[in-house]
């Protein structure tokens, strides 16, 4: 085994294969399983109908996020179906002895925010959840990906799933990022280059100085969006930034266990000479603040560019036209200056403290535009608390914004926060699919800076035009 150079991904994957099935998938062991109210109830029903038990409740964590309202969380949930799912999560958790962070629990929040925040997510782990953005946890050097409900039932009952090993891709971004270019822009840029299906079948390792220099929050944003180019997940080798982030968190190893873990974690990197099935290199200097104009996350462009012409595409013209038609945009147009109606900052992509710091850096001393409805939604109670402690809430209030309570909110239109039909939203979430934020809604994906610029001007605005003095603060916030 020892001398062949191997990738980070191989090291973690191979350490979790319980059995290899010939001409079939691997039986793959799962260290941590996150569950939420939407994709778990049917899995529990399945368990019951087969008379099975939860194998490792101590490896399973439940949080309520998709359905939850983001105001008045102390009141009963009005939507009966949502309330029913939330109750099911609670009763299933208590029945099987799973720790459950329900509505009102100080640890409650979006599953991919609370996992890392509480030290549950660690390097070298395998982590799954019935939610495709589980890829977020790859930021810690874990193999983490989304699964379907049948697989949730598999993990509950046997702590394993059946997975064919994906192919390996490495994406290198080197150089210095320009002004106002955040991790969200880096990921939107990569997805625009590879297209929405460009990494299907692969697991992606992100490498190069841009990721090395990035904060954990930034790395989570990047790994989070891996699924948007079809990749099962993304992974970044753990380093001092990772270890510092984890150290001291509630569920992180302590004392001797910490030292032991640390020495293992330090081996988790791709060896010199290891090979990938596919490799890409990008130059950080080519990336500018990004915005999407279409109905999949691959339809993004630098803010100074124009919407591509159909004749410049390599095919799929009918689908392209359908998409622009839905958005009410035309090929060749600029995005800058387009009037918008809503701004959403939050989600497991950009609902962490760095994101609110970035947002605040632009709105500070300015006012919310009258034509804009803004939903400012922290990813968790811990983030909410930080927003208050750091004085960001005061900046928000002064500029005319309100802070809501944590949850998935307008990311997926399952709760009360829905963008109305035909309206435009600049959103820091991860998907601009038709109707994703509410039937008929039109989503422009962007960074918290772009969202802030839109929130104070009421239109799509290059955030660089609004930031002169703020640059230094930003460098601090994302570590760029």
């Amino acid at each position, binding site marked *: 085994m020892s001398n062949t150079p191997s990738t980070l991904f191989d090291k973690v994957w191979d350490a979790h294969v319980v*059995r290899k099935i010939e*001409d079939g998938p691997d039986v793959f062991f799962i260290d941590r399983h996150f569950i939420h109210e939407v994709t778990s109830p049917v899995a529990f029903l399945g368990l019951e109908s087969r008379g099975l038990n939860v194998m490792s409740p101590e490896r399973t964590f439940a949080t309520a996020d998709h359905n939850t309202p983001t105001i008045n969380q102390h009141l009963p949930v009005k939507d009966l179906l949502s309330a029913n799912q939330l109750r099911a999560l609670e009763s299933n958790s208590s029945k099987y002895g799973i720790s459950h962070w329900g509505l009102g629990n100080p640890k409650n929040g979006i599953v991919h925010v609370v996992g890392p925040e509480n030290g549950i997510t660690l390097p*070298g782990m395998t982590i799954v959840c019935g939610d495709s953005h589980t890829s977020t946890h790859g930021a810690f050097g874990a193999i983490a990906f989304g699964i379907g409900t049948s697989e949730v039932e598999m993990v509950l009952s046997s702590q394993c799933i059946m997975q064919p090993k994906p192919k390996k891709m490495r994406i290198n971004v080197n150089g210095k990022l320009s002004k106002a270019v955040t991790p969200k822009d880096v990921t939107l840029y990569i997805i625009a280059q590879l297209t*929405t299906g460009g990494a299907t079948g692969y697991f992606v390792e992100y490498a190069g100085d841009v990721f090395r220099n990035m904060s954990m929050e930034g790395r989570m944003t990047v790994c989070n969006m891996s699924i948007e180019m079809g990749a099962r997940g993304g992974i970044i080798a753990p380093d001092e930034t990772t270890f510092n982030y984890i150290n001291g968190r509630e569920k992180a190893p302590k004392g001797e266990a910490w030292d032991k873990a640390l020495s293992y974690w330090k081996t988790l990197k791709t060896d010199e000479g290891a090979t990938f099935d596919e490799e890409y290199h990008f130059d950080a200097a080519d990336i500018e603040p990004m915005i999407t104009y279409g109905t999949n996350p691959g339809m993004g462009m630098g803010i100074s560019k124009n919407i591509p012409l159909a004749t410049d595409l390599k095919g799929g013209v009918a689908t392209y036209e359908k998409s622009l038609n839905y958005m009410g945009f035309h090929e060749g147009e600029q995005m800058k200056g387009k009037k918008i109606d809503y701004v959403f900052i939050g989600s497991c992509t950009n609902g962490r403290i760095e994101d609110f710091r970035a947002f605040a850096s632009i709105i500070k001393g300015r006012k919310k535009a009258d034509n804009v409805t803004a939903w400012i939604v922290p990813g968790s109670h811990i983030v909410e608390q930080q927003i208050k402690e750091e004085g960001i809430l005061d900046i928000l209030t002064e500029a005319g914004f309100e802070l809501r309570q944590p949850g998935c909110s307008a990311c997926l239109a399952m709760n009360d926060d829905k963008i109305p039909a035909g309206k435009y939203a600049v959103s820091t979430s991860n998907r601009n699919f038709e109707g994703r934020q509410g039937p008929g809604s039109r989503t422009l994906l962007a960074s918290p800076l772009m969202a802030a610029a839109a929130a104070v001007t009421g239109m799509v605005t290059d955030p660089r035009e609004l930031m002169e003095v703020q640059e230094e603060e930003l460098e601090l916030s994302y570590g760029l």
Partner: protein
Amino acid sequence: MPITNKMAYDKFTVLRSSAVPLPIENVDTDQIIPARFLKATERKEFGDNLFRDWRYNPDNSPKEDFILNNPVYSGKILVGGKNFGSGSSREHAAWAIYDYGFRCVVSSFFADIFKGNSLNIGILPVQVSAEFLDRIFTAIEADPKTELEVNLPEQTITILATGEQESFDINGYKKHNMINGFDDIDYLQAMKDEVNTFAAKSLY
């Protein structure tokens, strides 16, 4: 009785059926079933909301130009454009397709999670070349009642009217499961001791 778990899927061997064409690329699972219909705690009636926002107007009247509302097209096979099933991991998307009555989805490219979910609940995803996909669309356009034959044991798909045929990939394990209606949970339960031994050595 509602189907409450996937043990209830039918065995799949040879499927001969007309097909419903959906020549759109990047059909994501939010289109297949929008999030607001994921609130059930049981698996039932998801077929009613398959492609909800493409199929119905906001007042719930059917959109006449959507293919599922066109009685000329029917069958147990759905033929989609490239990169079918991207986006969210919701298995509800596969349930909706199954519950509506499809047993097979044909495309030139599938998103990973959707493909896995489909196999887990008894829908066969058949990946064909872009050229063959075009030929299927052309054949259906010429005759909406044209039949396709999907032969899982042989791993072939045939346009019966023209005899054009292509073979498709599926791993031996999943093929065996589909043909016999077995599922992974049974397999995993049968190796419980091996898993327990593995778990005992796990670092986490």
